[in-house]
């Protein structure tokens, strides 16, 4: 335990510690659950009016923040950050706070069931369908499916990691193809591109770590690091450190992005460049910086033609020169590539140009610069989630009939994947689809069987921290409440059904993955044998190194490669560039939590719906007003949404949040808003990530109006929002 632990933290850990002794005394994992009991029959360690706190890991995204959940009489009451966890140091994002409304959501899959594909899992009054199988029958179904091992495929989300490890081992031992992991965040963060660029420039595929906190000048190219990007809580803390951590220097922050995101709203300068020119801009600034520094011009920036950049990107030469000047004067400038810049036809070039820019500024492996995130304690190689191209290949295997049984966990592909990839149609060519969904989502509707996993707060497991901190972290999850419904851990189902892996249950598997850490002295705790380790692991909420483990890559040759950066290519026809972005409040799977729906979007303040952002000048020319419903048409499809006149967006760009537009997923999500993924065509960048920001679209008026619920006043104190017709 660290020395600067506060009194309150100690009390928390002490209570948690009391609870973990059950494992030490050799009881099985099941006895670790607290039951929800009437007040007259309380478990002996629960006192009336006193809470019990459990450390676990948030599963709302893949970042792996540590939580301490306050429980009372077996109910989870409040989520708080784990103050000792390196990723979030006691803090949480809104999605982490409201994870409880997932746990206690009125629409959950209540037990194993079989149903006709497409049939709903709740009725028109949103009453959940009753389970119609026993778990023994369910395990038998899985066992039968696993017999035809060559035709078995696993499609997993980006969390939790222990299930990915287990299915990898299982697939390996039965001779099935390795599991594939994907999710909407993989699309919008373009992780595969980031990792490929790192490999190309530094000779090592890894997730780079951008040390924004120790930088005094941040140039962000569409990186929404204060919203959902990679590890938002860790990067928000880094942002605060950049601004106020050094009493002498307030870090300066410039964001290049054609639409002002929540992150860009915090920038000192927001530069709305022409879509698709991020690479040109960074190369131009790189050239100017190299010129100012003197010496030989690096090959990487040799061929940049400033005049082309100025005309293509729509920025003035003075702006570029001013930024280059800031870079030269800064101690530790850093450039950060975001999903919006990488999800373009030439996203890989852009990522490489941005990394090369960091090399030019000599920040690689230094504080305030770029390094490679360390691997997690029980990991050998960095494993990036699948790119959209790999996902498309997977869908091709489904279509060819190669996949007989598809297991789906932790992802809702029918909703999250662009319709143009054809996942829903490909399901028709798979004989058996088994979903392990906790919630009645679109994919569960489209499956033959639903064998619900516990909610994340009812589950064991671990999550590897892939980025956000320089330490190597394995974040631990344990149940904070007993399961509310007749759900079962997917790991247990797979183990019971396969009988090929040498583990009795999920806990035994987890312990096998901890074995290498027992006795290690350089971590947050050290334990001499496995049961003690497991108990401490639960109490602390994971195991992490106490010192930085980040890798300083070799960047020697990075500036020697010739970077040819051109403007991106856009698919489809239309007068607007289309920029979908992941909703900062909902994330990819938040739409079924009513309080997340009622959180106003930070920049538009819209609640409970989807909007489309259009520049007011452009809208005026088209005769479009606030709340007009417009139809947006791309080569891949069309969606309708209400207009929000957004003053901070490039006149040729329209933007839409991703997260709504569900056709299932419970009473709070279904039939609400529109899904911009339906507009995305199957176009990829060189690293195989979807060029989601590389579409052009048409906008048509529908003549209808549908008011958006906003927190901001539409009228204004002096009636200025009433429009011309209401003077």
């Amino acid at each position, binding site marked *: 335990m660290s020395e600067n632990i506060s009194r309150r933290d100690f009390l928390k850990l002490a209570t948690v510690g009391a609870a973990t002794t059950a494992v030490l005394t050799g009881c099985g994992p099941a006895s670790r659950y607290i039951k929800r009991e009437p007040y007259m029959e309380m478990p002996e360690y629960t006192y009336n009016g006193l809470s019990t706190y459990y450390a676990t890991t948030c599963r709302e995204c893949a970042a792996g923040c540590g939580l301490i959940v306050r429980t009372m009489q077996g109910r989870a009451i409040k989520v708080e950050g784990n103050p000792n966890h390196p990723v979030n140091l006691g803090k*949480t994002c809104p999605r982490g706070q409201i994870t409880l409304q997932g746990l206690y959501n009125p629409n959950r899959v209540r037990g194993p069931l079989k149903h006709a594909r497409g049939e709903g899992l709740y009725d028109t009054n949103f009453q959940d369908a009753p389970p119609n199988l026993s778990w023994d029958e369910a395990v038998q179904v899985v066992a039968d499916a696993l017999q035809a091992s060559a035709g078995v495929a696993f499609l997993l989300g980006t969390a939790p990691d222990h299930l990915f490890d287990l299915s990898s081992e299982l697939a390996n031992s039965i001779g099935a193809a390795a599991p594939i992991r994907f999710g909407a965040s993989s699309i919008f963060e373009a992780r595969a591109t980031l990792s490929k660029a790192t490999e190309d420039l530094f000779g090592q595929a890894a997730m780079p770590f951008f040390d924004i906190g120790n930088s005094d000048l941040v140039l962000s190219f569409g990186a929404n690091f204060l919203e959902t990007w990679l590890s938002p809580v860790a990067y928000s803390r880094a942002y605060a450190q950049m601004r106020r951590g050094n009493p002498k220097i307030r870090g300066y922050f410039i964001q290049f992005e054609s639409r002002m995101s929540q992150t860009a709203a915090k920038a000192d300068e927001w530069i709305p460049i022409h879509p698709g020119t991020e690479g040109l801009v960074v190369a131009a600034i790189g050239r100017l910086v190299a010129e100012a520094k003197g010496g030989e011009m690096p090959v990487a920036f040799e061929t940049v033609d400033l005049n082309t950049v100025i005309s293509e990107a729509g920025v003035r030469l003075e702006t570029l020169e001013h930024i280059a000047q800031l870079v030269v004067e800064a101690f530790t400038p850093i450039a950060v590539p975001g999903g919006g810049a990488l999800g373009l036809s030439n996203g890989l070039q852009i990522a490489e140009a941005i990394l090369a820019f960091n090399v030019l500024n000599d920040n690689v492996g230094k504080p305030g610069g770029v390094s490679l995130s360390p691997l997690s304690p029980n990991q050998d190689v960095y494993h990036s989630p699948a790119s959209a191209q790999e996902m498309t290949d997977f869908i091709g295997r489904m279509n060819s009939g190669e996949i007989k049984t598809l297991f789906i966990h932790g992802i809702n592909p029918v909703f999250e994947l662009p319709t143009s990839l054809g996942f829903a149609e490909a399901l028709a060519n798979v004989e058996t689809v088994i979903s392990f969904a906790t919630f009645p989502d679109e994919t569960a509707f489209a499956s033959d069987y639903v064998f619900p996993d516990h909610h994340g707060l009812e589950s064991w497991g671990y999550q590897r921290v892939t980025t956000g901190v320089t330490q190597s972290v394995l974040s631990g999850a344990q149940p904070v409440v007993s399961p509310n419904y007749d759900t079962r851990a997917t790991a247990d189902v797979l183990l019971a059904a396969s009988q090929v892996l040498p583990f009795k249950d999920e806990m035994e598997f987890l312990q096998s993955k901890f074995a290498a850490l027992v006795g290690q002295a350089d971590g947050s705790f050290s334990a001499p044998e496995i049961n003690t380790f497991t108990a401490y692991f639960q109490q602390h909420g994971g195991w992490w190194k106490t010192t930085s483990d980040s890798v300083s890559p070799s960047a020697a040759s990075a500036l020697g490669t010739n970077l040819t950066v051109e403007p991106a290519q856009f698919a489809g026809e239309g007068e607007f560039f289309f920029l979908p972005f992941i909703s900062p409040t909902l994330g990819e799977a938040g739409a079924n939590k009513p309080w997340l729906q009622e959180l106003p979007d930070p920049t538009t303040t819209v609640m409970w719906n989807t909007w489309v952002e259009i520049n007011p000048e452009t809208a005026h020319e088209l005769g479009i007003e606030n709340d007009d419903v417009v139809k947006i048409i791309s080569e891949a499809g069309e969606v309708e949404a209400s207009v929000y006149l957004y003053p901070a967006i490039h006149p040729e760009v329209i933007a839409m949040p991703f997260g709504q537009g569900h056709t299932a997923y419970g009473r709070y999500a279904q039939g609400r808003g529109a899904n911009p993924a339906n507009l995305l065509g199957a176009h990829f960048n060189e690293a195989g990530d979807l060029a989601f920001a590389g579409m052009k679209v048409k906008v048509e008026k529908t003549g209808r109006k549908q008011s958006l619920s906003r927190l901001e006043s539409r009228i204004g104190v002096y009636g200025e929002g009433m429009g011309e017709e209401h003077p």
Partner: protein
Amino acid sequence: MSLSIDLNNMGAKGAIADEATGKWGMTIDQDLCTGCQACVAACAMENNLSHVGEEDAGYGRTQHWIRIERFWEGEYPEVKVKGGFQPMLCQQCGHAPCEPVCPVFATPHSNAEQLNLQVYNRCVGTRYCANNCPYQVRSFNWRDYHINPFHANEIDGQLVFPLHNQFNPDVTVRRRGVMEKCTFCIQRIHKAQDKAKSEGREVEDGEFNTACAQACPANAITFGRVDDPETLVSQLAQQERGYQHLEELNTLPRITYLKEG
């Protein structure tokens, strides 16, 4: 005939206070606030706030005890968020406009804590206080949101509300017709006080935190004792960047904002 009323005895002390020195205070750094809504979410989970649904939200009936305001300034491309994101919550005024207008003394001033209290079981829903609050931070329960059958499952003929499992037992659940607002997490204050009292000492700064300050990923919100000049919150409030909202109304807010830049 002359009638003299001592407002101190009427529970409306705020109306005549020259200066208020309170125990608890807060600073909000607008340079750090990223507008992420974690405070709003944490507040909702801690204080059993109801979600009102799309339609009522559109009518401005949301139950946000804390909200993030965003003001546009300028026109494209020189547009920016004026002054940064601005979390707005009850300022716990030392001289609170909401207090003297309540006909049933449901919004008294706490002498001990120097906070603006809200007594739910006294409130008759005149909404005078909300009308008089210059910060617009009071929210009214227009319906019984929590027990709307839409949130329920029908099990054996009974309505079961799974979301109710999450309710914080330390905080009242409010019914229709009642005004509510930020309490500075008074349940946490009381808990800390009880504990300190049982140990025969004063509550220390940093011993507990409000839900919003606890969650804030950027550490923009700092809560603590303002009666001690050595505490972090007092030090921050002394910064040159500090200002108080609508100071000119002499409301003596307990929250100091720190300007961007």
